[in-house]
């Protein structure tokens, strides 16, 4: 038919996808394994944004999207949709984490000690061009510490609570199954704290950084001090239907607590945590959390603003949807504009700018 010939829709999309996949070449288990082994921080970032902890699936998503991050996250989130929720894990306490890195900027030393762990913080960021000249880089061996750090570290905030610096915890005993699940219910405002932290946990790293950074630069009302930053591994403890609790495995997690100033006689704390090791994200997210309380509506640190605008899949999807044809809506706008111009030419009304009332569709 005439219409098919002019648009050729089905065939064109098929071939366009083939072209993309052909450029990436064959994907086999070895490629997936290599990505998983060599890019742990990328895998962590993707797992965090996908809210799906599986290094293997994250590596597969990266392989099949060629590292297009928003596509990789989308493909994992969509896969997640098809999976049933069969158990609810026990909440993780800070002092139970197998801690590899834990630092505080608020004190020179802290109970349990400053544990640097693996970091590039103090390295010189020099590109290892020697590798390209045929001289492989072999990392020098790590000298074991004379006294190994304990694998579990106390919570600094707990020490601060004992000192009366931080408000006592308002323990409200919520059964794990009653913790609201952001992926199963709509986000409504004001958001519950659980929803806010869950949404930040899977927010887009760059988006959280941009908005968190705007708060740090002065568009927020609180300048963060890193109270505690922690990279560790958490046991996923679930309950068997017979009642036994057991660990189903471990996940890498990051946590940040930031503080700023006194409120009501106590230091305020902002908090964030996510799957995987991703320090920039949790510091920026904790800064947003810290700033939320007094945020003016519509500002970058207002929770409705930052939660909506750091949602990776929604933001990237809407952005790329502007590539879709919009000629019907455009035609509708043209019609009103032509008619208004014709009327104006007839009546010679002085032009006045009206503000746009139609947001992007």
């Amino acid at each position, binding site marked *: 038919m005439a219409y098919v010939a002019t*648009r050729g829709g089905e065939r064109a999309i098929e071939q366009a996808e083939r072209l993309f996949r052909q450029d990436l070449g064959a994907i086999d288990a070895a490629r997936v394994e290599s990505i998983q082994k060599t890019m742990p921080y990328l895998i962590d970032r993707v797992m965090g944004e996908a809210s799906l902890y599986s290094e293997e699936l994250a590596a597969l998503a990266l392989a099949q999207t060629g590292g297009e991050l928003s596509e990789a996250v*989308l493909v994992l989130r969509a896969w997640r949709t*098809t999976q049933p929720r069969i158990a609810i894990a026990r909440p993780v306490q800070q002092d139970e984490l197998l801690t590899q890195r834990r630092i505080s900027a608020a004190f020179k030393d802290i109970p349990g000690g400053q544990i640097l762990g693996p970091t590039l913080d103090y390295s010189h960021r020099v590109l290892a061009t020697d590798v390209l000249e045929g001289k492989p880089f072999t990392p020098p061996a790590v000298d074991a510490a004379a006294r190994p750090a304990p694998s579990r570290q106390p919570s600094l905030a707990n020490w601060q609570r004992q000192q009366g610096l931080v408000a006592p915890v308002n323990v409200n005993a919520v059964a794990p199954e009653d913790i609201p699940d952001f992926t199963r219910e709509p986000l409504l405002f004001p958001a519950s704290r659980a929803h806010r932290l869950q949404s930040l946990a899977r927010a887009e790293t760059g988006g959280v950084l941009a908005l968190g950074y705007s708060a740090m630069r002065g568009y927020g009302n609180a300048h963060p001090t890193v109270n505690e930053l922690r990279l560790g591994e958490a046991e996923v403890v679930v309950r*068997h239907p017979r009642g036994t609790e057991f660990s189903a495995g471990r996940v890498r997690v990051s946590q940040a607590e930031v503080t700023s100033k006194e409120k009501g006689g106590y230091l305020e704390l902002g908090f964030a945590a996510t799957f995987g090791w991703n320090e920039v994200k949790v510091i920026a997210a904790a800064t947003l959390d810290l700033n939320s309380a007094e945020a003016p509506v*519509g500002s970058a640190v207002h929770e409705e603003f930052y939660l909506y605008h750091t949602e990776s899949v929604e933001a990237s999807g809407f952005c790329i949807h502007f590539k879709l044809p919009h000629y019907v809506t455009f035609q*509708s706008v043209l019609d009103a504009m032509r008619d208004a111009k014709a009327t104006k030419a007839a009546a010679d009304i002085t032009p006045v700018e009206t503000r746009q009332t139609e947001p992007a569709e």
Partner: protein
Amino acid sequence: MSLASLTKPWAATSYGFLDASAKRELRRKMLKAISVPGCQMPYASREVPMARGWGTGGLQVTLTLVNPNSSVKVIDQGADDGVNAASIRRFISRVSGASETWDTLAASIVQSRHRVPEEVMGEDQVLVLQVPNPEPLRGVEPNISVARQMHADADYGKLWLTLYEQIVRKGRIMQGAAYPSMVNGRHVMTPSPIPRWDVPKLNMARHLTFLSAGREKRLFAVPPFTRVEPLVFSDRPYRVEDHADLTCRRSNVSGFFMNELPIDGGGSAFEVSDSNLGIKAIRQAEGAPAEIGKTWYRNGEFSA
């Protein structure tokens, strides 16, 4: 009880892609949406294998409704063969076994972006409109919580004021597509970015319409025989696009919403936007059997 009793045998994905709990949530919200026409119902909105903003809200509603006996039509800008329409239709049939159709009359479900078909939809048909922005107040109130309160209070003064300002400044209401409309005399909704031409098709219709925004996680509905009234002042009647006198250069039909195609050397040509209506007209002209149903517009005039 065992772990196995809590879950199900492993399958790569569920029937219709969405798992059973996602479908149940949508069903609950779809019933509430019917019960309060035009009121935006929040839902969790699962990720589907398509980017947000590309019809994921409509898709979730369709996937909840679909079964192997369904017949599904998907259009984008009125066309069945638009790239995204083709992609969505193929996905739906792949995960549900439903049959695909281009014929409005043969479809049990019509999923659409930006158009309502020109042929009148019947009482057992469901129209699923993809909605980019479900909030008609977004232009006057970007904060979603404040806007929600305005709906609760039926406080539409700001919206009326902008429409009035447009008349004062431009001599007419400048709203293009997505014309804000009062549903059942209580909730103002966006009919999704359909042209003004299509809004009357939702008023006191025989079919059921769902409007679903996956990215913004809101869905709403217009049941059959429900009032959908564009916001207009009594002395400034509602005006649809001035397309009544245009003729399609391919199919020769006229009196329907058209696509404008700029042509070399200036001027424009027109093609009917409801592409399958055009195809049917061409077939009829060629002497092939092709039933064109009753249309909402006749000779360019709306006549429900």
